[in-house]
């Protein structure tokens, strides 16, 4: 499945998705309460060395993490002005550590393993009528629908252009009605194939 996963065979790649997710949750909670810059810098160093352990090329690591840089700098600037440079540095380090570690989990875990871990985590919700195994089907349907919507959008645009409409808000309405009809047809097809009963 297409994802942000970076394949590899390191110990980080081999440890189970659930363990990695729980560790991440625990570590990011602790990091949140840390104030000491030396400990935070140590955490950053540790996170960086874990990337080396996982064998993630630095380019991939940087590409994954640059998205949060502008907003982090903005928050650091605000902290500097409002509180102190110490607070600004702490914020910057804290966000850097958490984001680097979270991205490391994403990079070392195949999307399918993540889905399995999520299905397992949703297990307790079974008693509220949620069936975790349907989550997998829902994800598969979503990925299938993406090119369908894109294609329908192209067709609607084409039809409107043929009638001399250049751009119109009316574009979204036919697109939604068309694709909703298709979704309903697909739901009926699922029922017709007895999917409902086989998933019990």
């Amino acid at each position, binding site marked *: 499945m297409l994802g942000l996963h970076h394949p590899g065979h390191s110990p980080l790649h081999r440890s189970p998705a659930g363990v990695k997710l729980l560790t991440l949750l625990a570590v990011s909670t602790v990091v949140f309460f840390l104030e000491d810059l030396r400990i935070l810098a140590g955490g950053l160093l540790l996170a960086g060395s874990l990337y080396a352990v996982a064998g993630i090329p630095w380019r991939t690591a940087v590409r994954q*993490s640059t998205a949060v840089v*502008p907003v982090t700098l903005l928050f650091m600037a605000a902290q500097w002005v409002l509180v102190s440079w110490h607070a600004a540095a702490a914020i910057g380090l804290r966000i850097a550590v958490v984001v680097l570690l979270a991205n490391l989990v994403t990079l070392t875990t195949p999307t399918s393993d993540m889905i399995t871990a999520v299905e397992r985590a949703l297990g307790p919700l079974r008693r509220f009528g949620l069936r975790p195994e349907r989550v997998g089907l829902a994800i598969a349907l979503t990925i299938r629908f993406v090119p369908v919507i894109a294609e329908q959008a192209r067709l609607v645009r084409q039809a409107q252009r043929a009638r001399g409409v250049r751009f119109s808000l009316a574009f979204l309405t036919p697109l939604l009605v068309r694709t909703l009809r298709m979704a309903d047809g697909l739901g009926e097809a699922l029922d017709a194939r007895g999917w409902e009963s086989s998933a019990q």
Partner: protein
Amino acid sequence: MRSKDLAQIALFAALMVVLGFIPAVELPLAPAPLTSQTVGVLLAGSILGARRGGLALLLFDLLVVVGLPVLPGGRGGLGVILGPTGGFILAWPVAAFVVGLLTERLWHRYNLGTALACNAVGTLTIYAIGIPWSAVVAHLPAWRAIEVSAVYVPGDIIKLIICSVVAVRVRRAYPLIEART
């Protein structure tokens, strides 16, 4: 849940992915890029109602969490959720649910006016969760976080007008919500 509901939920999650392809405008001083994906959030609630709309966005958030690059600019993964703008993304399912709930209540009197009201509450829900989240993650005072987020207001007003017009039209052409009183 019927298979039809499942397909509709997946459709709106997919619509979110498609809206993410539209290049986001990076504002120099805003915490998150200006994205057309909020259109998908409001439409999911307005067209599918509370339960299906909320689940569609929950499904989309799940795609983000498991590491698919479905946010604007091909972003995704846990880093975005745990970062300063994660609250906005986590607010989407709640906002779709709220819009859906209001839409169901007002279904018999649904017109452009009521649609605008429903979607405005939905937009405020996103702010109400997203802004405190970034304030907490970045240890920022609330008023400063509100100031930073003010840049979104004009865009959000345009988006909620678009959604309301479309929601009223889709209701006429292909109604899917059952009224709730």
